[in-house]
């Protein structure tokens, strides 16, 4: 009895109609269990050297992702490439301002990503609202809703700044300090409460896995 972990209560999924609740996951996210010793170091090296971005431009700053793909900036030389689905991606670049409608898709996509997963928040809007500080429809801090590993400031940042942000993210991953996913699992209820405070028509599972 002593060493058995208590199973957390299943999620209610109250946003879904009763007949659909059985179709979705009702377990909360779990923290990442690190491998032992050098194996984890090796895995972190591999993760840092193959950053796969989710190809989802969430705001105007996503326009800065396009030049990265071209020969002038060429993100592929750093092991960075875009992937079409959340299941294949490890990095989510929040491309600038996030309206509530987009936030809903951001949450959904973030939760669908395989762990370990990392978030790069791009532009002033993700940090403090930027020029949308008084907007009725734009959130002011993305880190209230999903955990963020690296911020890239600017309105909007140049592709060089974005590359520098990726290099910073690599360092964090190599050092084993990219704790976003664990933060999300640990503070899941807090994140979920924040999300539900602004997304008023919550009609998706509580954890979109």
């Amino acid at each position, binding site marked *: 009895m002593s060493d058995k972990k208590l199973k957390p209560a299943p999620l209610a999924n109250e946003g879904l109609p009763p007949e659909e609740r059985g179709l979705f996951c009702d377990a909360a996210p779990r923290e990442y269990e690190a491998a032992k010793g050098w194996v984890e170091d090796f895995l972190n090296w591999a993760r840092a050297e193959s950053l796969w971005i989710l190809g989802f431009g969430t705001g105007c700053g996503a326009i800065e992702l396009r030049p990265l793909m071209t020969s002038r900036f060429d993100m592929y030389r750093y092991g960075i490439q875009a992937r079409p689905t959340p299941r294949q991606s490890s990095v989510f670049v929040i491309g600038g301002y996030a309206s509530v409608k987009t936030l809903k898709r951001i949450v959904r996509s973030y939760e669908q990503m395989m762990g370990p997963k990392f978030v790069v928040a791009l532009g002033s809007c993700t940090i403090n609202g930027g020029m949308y500080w008084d907007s009725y429809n734009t959130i002011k801090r993305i880190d*209230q809703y999903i955990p963020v590993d690296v911020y890239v400031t600017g309105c909007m940042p140049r592709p060089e700044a974005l590359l520098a942000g990726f290099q910073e993210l690599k360092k964090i991953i190599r050092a084993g300090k990219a704790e976003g996913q664990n933060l999300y699992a640990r503070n899941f209820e807090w994140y979920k409460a924040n999300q539900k*405070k602004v997304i008023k028509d919550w009609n998706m599972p509580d954890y979109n896995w």
Partner: protein
Amino acid sequence: MNELANELAARYGARDWHEQRKDLASIWVDPIRIHDTLAWLKDQAGYAHLSFLTAVDNIERKAFTMAYTLRNHEKGHSLIVHCDIDRDHPVVDSIHLLWGQAWTYQRELKEWFGIDCPGSPRKDEEFVLEGWDDIPMMRRDFDSLAYSQATYDDRPGRETADPATHMKQKLYPEAPL
């Protein structure tokens, strides 16, 4: 173009013809005549293209001013037809049977201003917002800043500087402000 102004005045009591540019004019009609006016303009006067439909919240005189922008491609002339509708009871005739695309504009007007166009398809469905629970946000009595402060959390420490003053201080610190 004054022929058109006279014709509209005679038929529909249109008034206040205003020539803004050579290729752009505006005119006012009563809201009860808006559908007939637009139908005549479309079918008889060559203004066959509805290029824009929007509203302006004239809260001072308790009215929403509708603006129907029509284009006559043969003459290369645009005409904006205005009408004032009561702000407390914002209902206006639907024109989706004249121009098929109008229902999208009318759905937008319903969500953003609360202007109702009875009979317009899907007018009560959400358009851009999801789960909006306040008064329509394009109305001028909606306080965007207060809503934002009440709904979205601030990051402490944000400072806002006037760009002109900031750059002056930075580049010429010795100059008086």
